[in-house]
């Protein structure tokens, strides 16, 4: 028996030996290049980074090679936390906005970037999502996403509609589409709570609660969700309920996008990241921002900080990683990045031009508007119950079960009061 197994065993040992030798050979490489690893959650952008962006960086920075190491977005937080605790974190870490990042800063995952030239090319509002409590910057902003209302220009022409400039006009437009009866006025379903919050409430609400005024007021405790401004924001959100497709309670995010791209709906509330998707069927699509209550009032535009990169405090290649972070602040990178990835917008002070016409139209929404972040992601969701999750749930209840704006805001404020102490 033993003798019969011997050749097999020899083969196995030989194969193992060869494999290990291969690893060793692959691991060494030549001495004068430094490799840095980028940890990100953007698995879908791997090809873009590897084919376009990283080569551009490596060309201008000989001696540094960059490895793109994405982790699925749902597992990203836990993966990075366990990697860093285990001492194997990537050199450059993609930063989640607000609370998650703040907890990472407190854990000492990042080095301060106060000395970095790249940081000074961004306005304060762009850096805010990734700062420590004392205002120290820890990440270089890469991209933000905007929310808007996509509209089918063919349907607007057919029914003789104009892009609305006030909330009342918006409802008139929806009424006209509804009366005509051929198309669904608003491609919106309530099966996915997150998108009711992110694409609707946080988009139409800021006009009522005055954007950052309201948001920061909640954080420092000077305002409450039960204040008239917030109740009004929730009421505006509620007023769109009459224009939804049949069975909207179980229409998911994918369904509503499809309803719009098939040309069956006039307007789609969605994020800028969907630009390629909504035009994929060849529709002629335009975009407008949530209009203010009355003509001439200040308009508020949701801009959500999405991606940034920070420096791993325990990284071994800090010098090369810092060079990479400096490069992220250059117009060269920003121009390249936003045009390779339509729907994501540069947060730098330098103007960037967009090849994609719809992306340019989206970027133009920022003109003359006050920018504001999504309401509940900063600080207000760092306890139990997290305000953001509660808003998803309550927004669903408003559309599905007729919860009133007053009841909704009272319930949310009660949940928030149970754990949140204002930062003051």
């Amino acid at each position, binding site marked *: 028996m033993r003798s019969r197994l011997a050749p097999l065993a020899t083969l196995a040992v030989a194969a193992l030996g060869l494999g290990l030798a291969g690893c060793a050979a692959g691991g060494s490489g030549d001495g004068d290049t430094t490799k840095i690893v980028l940890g990100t959650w953007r698995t879908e952008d791997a090809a873009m980074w590897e084919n376009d962006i990283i080569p551009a960086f490596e060309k201008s920075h000989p001696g540094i090679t960059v490895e793109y190491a994405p982790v699925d977005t*749902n*597992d990203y*937080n*836990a993966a990075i*936390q366990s990697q860093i605790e285990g001492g194997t974190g990537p050199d450059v870490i993609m930063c*989640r*906005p*607000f*609370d*998650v990042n703040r*907890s990472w800063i*407190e*854990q*000492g995952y990042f080095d301060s970037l106060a000395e970095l030239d790249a940081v000074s090319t961004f306005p304060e509002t762009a850096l805010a999502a990734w700062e420590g409590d004392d205002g120290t910057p820890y990440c270089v902003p890469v991209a933000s996403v905007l929310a808007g209302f996509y509209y089918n220009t063919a349907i607007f022409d057919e029914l003789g509609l104009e892009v609305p400039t006030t909330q009342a006009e918006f409802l008139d437009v929806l009424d006209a589409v509804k009366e005509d009866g051929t198309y669904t006025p608003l491609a919106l*379903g*309530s*099966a*996915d*709570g*997150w998108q009711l919050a992110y694409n609707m409430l946080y988009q139409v609400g800021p006009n009522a609660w005055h954007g950052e005024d309201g948001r920061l007021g909640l954080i420092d405790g000077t305002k409450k969700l039960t204040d008239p401004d917030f109740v009004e924001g929730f009421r505006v959100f509620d007023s769109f309920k009459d224009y939804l*497709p*049949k*069975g*909207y*309670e*179980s*229409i*998911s995010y994918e*369904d509503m996008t*499809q*309803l719009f791209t098939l040309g069956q709906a006039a307007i789609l509330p969605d994020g800028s990241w969907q630009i390629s998707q909504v035009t994929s069927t060849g529709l002629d699509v335009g975009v407008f921002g949530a209009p203010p209550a009355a003509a001439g009032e200040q308009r508020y535009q949701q801009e959500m900080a999405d991606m940034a990169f920070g420096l791993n405090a325990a990284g071994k290649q800090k010098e090369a990683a810092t060079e990479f972070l400096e490069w992220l602040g250059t117009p060269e990178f920003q121009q390249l990045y936003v045009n390779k990835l339509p729907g994501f917008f540069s947060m730098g002070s330098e103007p960037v031009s967009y090849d994609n016409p719809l992306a340019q139209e989206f970027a133009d929404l920022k003109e003359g508007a006050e920018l504001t972040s999504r309401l*509940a*992601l900063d600080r207000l*969701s*760092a306890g*139990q*119950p*997290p305000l*953001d*999750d509660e808003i*998803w*749930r309550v927004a*669903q*209840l408003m559309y*599905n*079960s007729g919860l009133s704006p007053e009841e909704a805001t009272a319930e949310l404020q009660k*949940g928030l009061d*149970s754990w949140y102490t204002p930062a003051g």
Partner: protein
Amino acid sequence: MIRTGTRYRMLALFVAPALVVYVAFAVYPLLSSVGMSFFDSGGGDSTFVGFGNYVELFTNPTTSERFWNALVNNVEFFLIHLLVELPVGLLIAALLTSGRLRRSVGLYRTLLFIPATLSVVIVGFLWRLIINPLWGIVEFPLLGNEATALPTISLMSVWQYLGIPMVFLYTALLAIPDDVVEASRIDGAGAWTIFWRIKFPLIAPQFGLITILTYIWTFNGFDIVYALNGSAPGPNYSTDILGTFFYRSFFGSSGQVADLDLGGTVASVIFAIILVTTAAYFWVLQRRLKTYEL
């Protein structure tokens, strides 16, 4: 014969590989997550807090409400599985062994088992399209209504895994010797009597086994709910089960920071629920089930 010493050495040798893998990949992670539940690792270093996390889980109004909600939903998820899968599985197994299908038995058996081999994501996607109010066959928002969402998801899962109890019962029915059936037929029993008086008592122990397997499987359930409704399964958490509740605590959701300690606590509680019930079942019930010697 082989001496006892060699015997034991060989025994250890044969058991070792499976034991090592089992300990490394099942026992150790289990114990480490139970261990985790006794620590508070916020702020960089862990401090021992005893049952603090458990107290927090059951006394914090939000987490305890979500936990009980998930538990009740999970019981419903289990009962729907049991009450639909068992009778339907039995009916199909009885039809397959009745001899009426003749040569198409193999075809039906395969067709009925195929869904169990599909990915849960595909099953969820197919059913979601079928019952979609926009392009599906029903206008009623089955998945969007708090009262119907969980039963709908449960029935999708029942559809998928119907083949499993069917196969259990089918093999048990096949194992019944023909002479017993023939003898009863000679004694004048009809098909109905034969099934309920002869075959059913002989396959009865299978029901206990299927019940407990369904129990373990549904209380570990996660994938179909997550595939359809994500980690904060709505509407209004009406489809939240223990698995998704655990996922949300451990990995976080949206802007929420992952809380490994709370996650470990939830995992330990789920483990305890399954362990206690399963143990009670084996000690109390399984031993009393009558097995007929043939």
